């Protein structure tokens, strides 16, 4: 048989979505905008969108998340929202003094047909600039098409399209990591730094969404990808873009390649051994340097620990869910440690998910993992009975299933709403794999220990 079993959502095809395994498109744009220096995300729509998304993001990061809104009311829905959008921009500029405002549309403003780029153009023409006019970057994010990941990638692309200038070539590289944690971003910066490379990581939420307690409320938290660096992205030696399911959507990496011939390396999210090896191989090529000893050491210790712990995880059956690229990368790692990815599910629908899962599993995993695009937690729960999984791997929203089954949930990705420290979860690199492996192996050890009548003290 060719390829994995790509399972269509269970028959009969349900028309409703129950307990979604995806978020709406504008929230992805807001999250991306949060990772750019001096930027305020702005939603053109009704007030509730901004407030709900703020609340959702706050519950993961425990950080102030200021997302402005044009707060449209009934009359704007009839006559168009441009007056409120302009007023909102004036107010944000006045109080926040941003370097950039990232303006995402919503289902409301897409449907009433507001032409945001045109409104912004008018606004810029009408407004006297005193040199303090921030960059205004619109991105179209109708919530009825795609998930938060399309919103995220769309926003990153919009930023680059708006900022990148005709390039002067330089030695730096671009990294477009997708939606990873602040800890991941810090690690990426550390790695490229250790290679002696200048990397523009876009977006960079390492400080903006994981900042210190302060004496003054940070209207716009410090950190984020510097706007001056984004301008120069077109002249970079190469772009590393993470995600095995994004080749069909218009991303910033694709745009830079089309527009400025910036070579694009499309890699999987560097989770686990092989995907991290691929990243380091590219970095070696681009830097002309060998991988620093520090990371060789991390890799060596990782392998050693996998040997030490392999029996505790071998043959365990995992259900892995979340964003497509994250699930693909986690699955790649799971098959490396002998865990069976019996079900890989995502609310996303790139059309590439099954193929990507096959690509990362085929040489290590004999069975065909069941893969489902456009899945929700009802679909996942439906499959659970027959799959008898030993663990779940994904964000917090799988907790009710894990509780019902009495099996561990390994919390990764976003959102983590029922634990602290979601922003500090390190997924990537050998170091990230080490942390995940210890977590998973110990969860399996604990499950066995807790279920033992003996209560033994050695493994």
């Amino acid at each position, binding site marked *: 048989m060719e390829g994995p079993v790509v399972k269509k959502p269970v028959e009969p095809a349900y028309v409703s979505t129950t*307990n979604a395994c995806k978020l709406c498109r504008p929230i992805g744009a807001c999250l991306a905008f949060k990772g750019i220096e001096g930027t305020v995300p702005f939603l053109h729509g*009704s007030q*509730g969108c901004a407030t709900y998304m703020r609340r959702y993001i706050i519950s993961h990061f425990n950080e102030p998340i200021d997302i402005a809104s044009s707060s449209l009311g009934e009359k*704007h829905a009839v006559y168009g929202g441009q007056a409120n959008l302009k007023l909102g921009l004036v107010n944000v500029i006045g109080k926040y003094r941003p370097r950039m405002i990232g303006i995402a549309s919503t289902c409301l403003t897409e449907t009433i047909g507001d032409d945001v780029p045109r409104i912004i153009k008018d606004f810029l023409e009408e407004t006297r600039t005193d040199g303090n006019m921030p960059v205004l970057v619109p991105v179209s994010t109708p919530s009825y098409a795609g998930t938060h990941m399309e919103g995220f990638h769309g926003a990153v692309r919009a930023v680059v399209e708006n900022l990148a200038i005709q390039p002067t070539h330089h030695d730096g590289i671009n990294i477009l990591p997708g939606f990873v944690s602040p800890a991941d971003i810090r690690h990426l910066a550390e790695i490229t730094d250790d290679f002696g490379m200048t990397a523009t990581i876009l977006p960079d939420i390492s400080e903006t969404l994981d900042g210190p307690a302060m004496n003054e409320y940070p209207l716009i938290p410090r950190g984020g990808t510097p706007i001056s660096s984004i301008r120069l992205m077109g002249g970079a030696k190469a772009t590393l873009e993470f995600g095995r399911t994004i080749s069909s959507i218009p991303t910033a990496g694709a745009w830079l390649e089309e527009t400025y011939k910036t070579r694009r390396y499309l890699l999987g999210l560097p989770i686990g051994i092989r995907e991290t090896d691929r990243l380091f191989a590219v970095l070696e090529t681009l830097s002309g340097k060998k991988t620093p000893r520090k990371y060789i050491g991390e890799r060596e210790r990782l392998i050693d620990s996998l040997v030490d712990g392999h029996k505790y995880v071998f043959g365990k059956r995992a259900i892995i869910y979340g964003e497509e690229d994250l699930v693909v990368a986690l699955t790649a790692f799971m098959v490396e440690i002998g865990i069976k990815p019996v079900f890989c599910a995502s609310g996303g629908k790139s059309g590439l998910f099954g193929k990507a899962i096959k690509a990362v599993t085929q040489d290590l995993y004999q069975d065909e993992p069941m893969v489902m695009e456009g899945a929700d937690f009802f679909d996942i729960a439906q499959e659970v009975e027959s799959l008898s999984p030993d663990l779940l791997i994904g964000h917090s929203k799988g907790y009710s299933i894990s509780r019902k089954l009495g099996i561990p949930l390994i919390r990764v990705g976003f959102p983590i709403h029922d634990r602290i420290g979601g922003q500090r979860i390190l997924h990537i690199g050998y170091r990230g794999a080490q942390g995940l492996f210890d977590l998973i192996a110990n969860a399996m050890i604990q499950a066995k220990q807790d279920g033992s009548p003996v209560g033994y003290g050695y493994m």
Partner: protein
Amino acid sequence: MQQAIFEERQGQIREKDERPFSIECNKASLAGAVSQRACVFCGSRVVLYPIADALHLVHGPIGCAVYTWDIRGALSSGRELHRMSFSTDLQEMDVIFGGENKLYRALNELIERYSPGAAFVYSTCIVGIIGDDLEAVCRKVQQERGIPVIPVQSEGFKGNKRSGYMAACNAMFRLVGTGNTEGISPCSVNLLGDFNLAGEIWIIRKYFKQMGIEVVANITGDGRIADIQRAHGARLNIVQCSGATLDLARMMKNKYGIPYIRVSYFGVEDMAESLYRVARHFKDPGIMRRTRELVGEELSRLYPRLEEYRKALAGKKAAIYVGGAFKAFSLVKAFRLLGMKVVMVGSQTGTTEDYEELAAITDPGTIIVDDSNPLELSAFLKEKDVDIFVGGVKERPIAYKLGVAFCDHNHERKEALEGFIGMLNFAKEVYASVMSPVWRFVPRRAAAAVDQGRCIWKAQ
């Protein structure tokens, strides 16, 4: 501080002084001001959410459903259908060709799957624009399935949270009057505006049981469709909270002649007074005697236990920002009972009368604010050098970022704050945050610590 305040919002902020009090409120949120408010849909969703045997189907793109999935700590003693998130998950084609057919099919499959007591269908922004006839689809499914299928007119942009409360009340009012009221006691009430967060309505129901009063319907905490359908058989509506369900009480008064009273179960004073008011209403000496006993017993248990918290907390400064102002009244009194001083109080959706009441019960110098935002709130916390901030999820990071203690008075709280026991829990919560040693290390207090030679890293 002035620079934190938008010119358009000046009238919505007052510092209490000798002059007659007036404040602007009930306005649309200012664009770009990062209001802490949500939308019409939020207002409706929040009120109907705890009805545990109903299907809550959100008609729209996925966002509105996914951000309200299992969002409130509204407990149920039985079914937990309310903790699921159902959406028609509208896609581009639905927006172009209309979502009625999808809604019809979604309702059918979900009713088939879960056999709910009724279905609420929430309209979202986009539905208001593409013009789906919710009423017609609901009517059809109701006829075919034989359960109430009720549209909730909660398009996000059509007003603010208060309009959403109204839409929810309209939806519930369709249920009221359709059930059998036989056997309901003359001493009976409905509990409106309690959402059974952390099991609070169970505490309150226990009090009424002790007093000899029957509770007909919980509206909506641990709520059931069949109870709401017979709610018109109760003799009194007891309305808590800031008017989320007040409209329903008014409608029931007009149509069924059921009187209502407004109460609060937060804090000792308001809790006791609420029970007494209900007892007085029924003019039954037995009920009054049992109420006195109940309050007496509870207080004699509570006060000694509160004492240690009062000693530690006396003189500390508190700030309050909540959704509805009614809750703020009780919080002001609760802080006072702990010997603390309220220096700022505000709400998302207070009315003129609400703010006048707040002005009446607070000390001079207290900041009173309507529909605030992070910019202002952080400025107030700094200016007043607040020791603890009480609010919801969106207020928490504002406090924490500035190194200020915080008490969760939100919809996902795990500690019951209502009832006499709730006052004790509240004191514990406040104490646990204010007294944490962590504040010694945050920048706000670290500077002071340097002066006292305690802070090593600053001193170096």
